[in-house]
């Protein structure tokens, strides 16, 4: 297959999927099969691109010569985009399976619209991943906002409407108000919007303006949820859980930080930012967001809200990695896109499974749940460890690289990272601990009173009758187990990821 065709098919597959879903909307089983097929086909196609990219190739496809004068609608698969595409497309089939279980288990309405918009969101995410220039990136960035809006406001309740306003207001406000301004400014100065190694701005812009331009970009990518423009993310949690899982832990938020990384590497260029020190302030903002996000997560009793604030903090890691403008920082940021994605999607899957099976939303209600939902809570525990960064979970590697990136010149941020890890422990670990070691609340179940738990949920092997009676539908449980395993697998696979992205910053993996 020619590279053009592969890229085209990668992008077309989710759209075709959306169309098929829309056409088969009357027959739920057939419709779900369509989502499944489309998602599997998409990840299959994305995987075929990995080998050439690993060999240093950058397949590209110019669709339209001039989306804007001098700005083609074009795609080029470079390592960072490859990684983001793999994460988004790779987690789609899993999430689809989960979504089927969740949406049916939770008796949601308008499921056809849900799956159509979901597929279109993946399309937009892939478009962002493969964009060869800022114009194309912006186009798909806006498409992603618009496609996810119906998902966020899925329940069409007054609460959903209010959240939708904040969601759209912040995301579109920042993208039009800041990002577009920054892009137009870049084009006016550099005369091009292409992503190039080493950046396009060097020598074209007054260095004194660089911090301002960087700020427009960093806050313009509102999906990166830098404080104080983070409010949309907790609000987006009103969406059904699969949306929170794939979009607001993976595709959408990663679109923001991915764009920041890509802009730092390919528009500014590390050398330019490093030599002028223009990104120093961004490190502090990221560090602040990182700590504040964790601190706020502490006092959230609503499980999804706690996870949302955790996501804000974790996204700031990636922005910090970008702002450090050191090769290790970029690698760490890229790696964190993958490791956090797998970890956080697991946590959200668990939160949704708990909601479906036990109808509980708050952390304080989870006492003793480990007995009825051992698999779910076990997966939750594993994913928490990954987020904290404990080996042998994938998350340990990304934090390692971030710390390395900071160690040379900005050692203070190593301390920040450590403090943050402690905070992560503080707000994540109590959840499985409560579930496994605390006795269930008296009014919930009659069979409580024996205060000893199972330790970790790994005891799931000896599946005795009734053991999993309290679990969510299997379509929910299997995906969350898979992604939990993924957390561990990433620990051993991390060097592949590093080998993939290291060339863009000129270090050997």
């Amino acid at each position: 297959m020619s590279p053009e065709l592969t890229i085209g098919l990668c992008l077309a597959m989710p759209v075709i999927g959306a169309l098929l879903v829309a056409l088969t909307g009357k027959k739920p089983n057939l419709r779900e099969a369509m989502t499944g097929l489309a998602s599997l086909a998409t990840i299959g196609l994305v995987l075929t691109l990995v080998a050439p990219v690993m060999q240093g190739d950058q397949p590209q496809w110019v669709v339209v010569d001039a989306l804007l004068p001098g700005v083609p609608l074009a795609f080029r698969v470079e390592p960072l985009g490859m990684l983001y595409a793999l994460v988004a497309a790779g987690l789609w089939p899993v999430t689809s399976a989960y979504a089927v279980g969740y949406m049916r288990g939770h008796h949601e309405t308008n499921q056809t619209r849900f799956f159509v918009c979901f597929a279109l969101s993946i399309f937009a995410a892939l478009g962002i991943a493969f964009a060869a220039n800022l114009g194309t990136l912006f186009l798909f960035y806006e498409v992603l906002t618009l496609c996810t809006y119906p998902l966020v406001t899925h329940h069409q309740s007054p609460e959903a409407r209010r959240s939708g306003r904040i969601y759209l207001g912040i995301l579109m406000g920042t993208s039009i108000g800041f990002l577009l301004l920054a892009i137009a400014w870049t084009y006016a100065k550099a005369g091009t919007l292409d992503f190039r190694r080493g950046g396009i701005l060097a020598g074209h812009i007054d260095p004194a303006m660089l911090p301002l331009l960087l700020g427009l970009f960093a806050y313009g990518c509102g999906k990166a949820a830098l404080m104080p423009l983070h409010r949309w993310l907790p609000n987006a949690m009103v969406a059904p859980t699969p949306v929170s899982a794939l979009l607001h832990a993976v595709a959408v938020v990663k679109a923001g930080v991915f764009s920041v990384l890509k802009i730092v590497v390919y528009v500014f260029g590390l050398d330019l930012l490093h030599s002028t020190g223009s990104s120093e302030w961004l490190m502090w903002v990221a560090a602040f967001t990182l700590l504040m996000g964790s601190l706020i997560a502490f006092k959230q009793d609503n499980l999804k809200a706690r996870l949302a604030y955790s996501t804000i903090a974790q996204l700031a890691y990636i922005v910090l990695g970008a702002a450090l403008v050191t090769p290790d920082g970029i690698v760490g940021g890229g790696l964190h896109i993958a490791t956090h994605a797998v970890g956080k999607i697991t946590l959200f899957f668990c939160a949704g499974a708990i909601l479906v099976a036990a109808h509980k939303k708050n952390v304080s209600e989870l006492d003793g749940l480990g007995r009825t939902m051992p698999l779910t809570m076990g997966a939750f525990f594993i994913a928490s460890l990954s987020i904290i960064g404990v080996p042998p979970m994938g998350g340990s590697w990304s934090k390692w690289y971030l710390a390395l990136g900071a160690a040379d010149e900005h050692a203070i941020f190593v301390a920040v990272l450590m403090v943050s890890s402690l905070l992560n422990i503080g707000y994540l670990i109590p959840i499985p601990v409560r579930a496994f070691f605390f006795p269930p609340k008296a009014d919930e179940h009659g069979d409580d009173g024996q205060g000893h738990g199972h330790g970790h949920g790994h005891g799931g092997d000896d599946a005795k009758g009734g053991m999993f009676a309290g679990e969510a539908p299997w379509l929910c449980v299997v995906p969350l187990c898979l992604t939990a395993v993924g957390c561990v697998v990433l620990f051993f696979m991390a060097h592949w990821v590093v080998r993939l992205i290291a060339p863009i910053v000129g270090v050997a993996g």
Partner: protein
Amino acid sequence: MSGLKAHFPVLLVVVPLLTAPLLALIRQKQVARALALLSALATAVIGWGLVIAAREQVEPLSYHLGGWPPPIGIEYVVSQASAFVVAIVSSIAALGLLLGTRETRKEVTEGQQHLYYAAYLLCLAGLLGMAITGDAFNVFVFLEISSLSTYSLVAMGNRRRAFSAAFNYLILGTIGGTFVLIGIGLLYQVTGTLNVQDIAHRVQELEDVAPDSHNLTLLVAFVFMIVGLGLKLAVFPLHQWLPGAYAEAPAAVSAFLAGTATKVIYFQLLRTTVVFFGAAHVFGALRFGTHVLMPLSIAGMFIGSIAAIYQPTLKRMLAYSSVGQVGYLTLALSFGTEAGVQAGLLHLGAHAVTKAGLFCVVAAIVAGVGSNRIQRLNGLGKRMPIVAFAFVLGGVGLIGVPGTSGFVSKWALLQAAFASEHYLVAGLVLLSSLVAVVYVWRIVEVMYFQAPPVDEKTTHDNLAMVPALILLGASVLFGLFPDQVVELAADAAHQLFLEPGSLPPLPTGGHG
């Protein structure tokens, strides 16, 4: 055929101008409708034919009316810009008539319909003539033809308020027209000619003689023309007539006017500032752009858009949005650069298509639920899914989301702002786009988040959606594949900016 083609410039005006009285005589609404549509389609074909013809030429085509050479005779000028404008205007007029097929039957009083079509075509003839004529007095004549017919079209709206809206428009429009006439008269007094190119020549000569001292008569002429055109264009704060006129006119007329009337006047404004008085003089010595037009444009952008948020009906909302959009148009001009005028022409096209499309959607809504009050739109996403979706599509176009025409023109506007180092202005343009998000999303929320009423019936007017989808589809198409149009606008702007002296002397004798 080529013989006929040579007469395209005049046919463009003559076809609708002659069909109009015919319709008034026929008194048969079916026949009148068919003839009107046929005539409008013919002008649309001619309009695009002129674009093609103009694209083939480096210099503007000049057509001598009756074979009399200018500056004595009247000349029609097919420049890239005028061809672009007439093509858009005539196409939207044809689509507006297509829309009118079902709508007008309900909205316009029985027995007046043939007159409605006659007025519509007269208005079209006036607008096209204004854009294509190269004679300053002709501009005024056509301006009045289009204005008078517009007043009567607005008055045909089915609510009593239509009369007061039309009257309001009549008073202000007449003042505007008179000011333009006074301006032209003064220009004639100074230069002794009415031919646009000739005026430009002589004004330039006058300015060259004494570059520092302003010729007071010229200055007064300029001010009269600008205020007059500003009134007709609804430049803030001269926009008072527009919301009422757009809101009370029959739906098809709103669509037609929104897409055409202000656009042609904008073209006149371009000619007046850039050609008549010379860009160097107007934007350089007079500082008209940065000191007058720019602040007014920015105020209009914000005040129009903010007012749009608070309107009770869709039509009024779209009308106030137009006031805001006119702000973008004039802002583009205020830079006084070629890039700015290019952006202005692009926005002219983009906004014409988008806003006309949106008014067509409103027509379908009015046909469906019997009102365009926003509180009556609840649950429209369920009741009329395609209509509601089309509205969202148009709305995102107004905001300027990439993939729509609105984005292309806004991008050009930003680039023009950056090129002339107006960084703050670029930021303000984007900030005001965010206000558009608010007024568009207010409607989206009503349509999708409020439960549809239980007992109300909705009728589906699929025919009304045809022009709406054509226009909005064109907007998306232009948003994704803009290069042809962008090139056209660039060439058109370049042509407008050519010094009058650098044009060859006017040809003598012969026509076409």
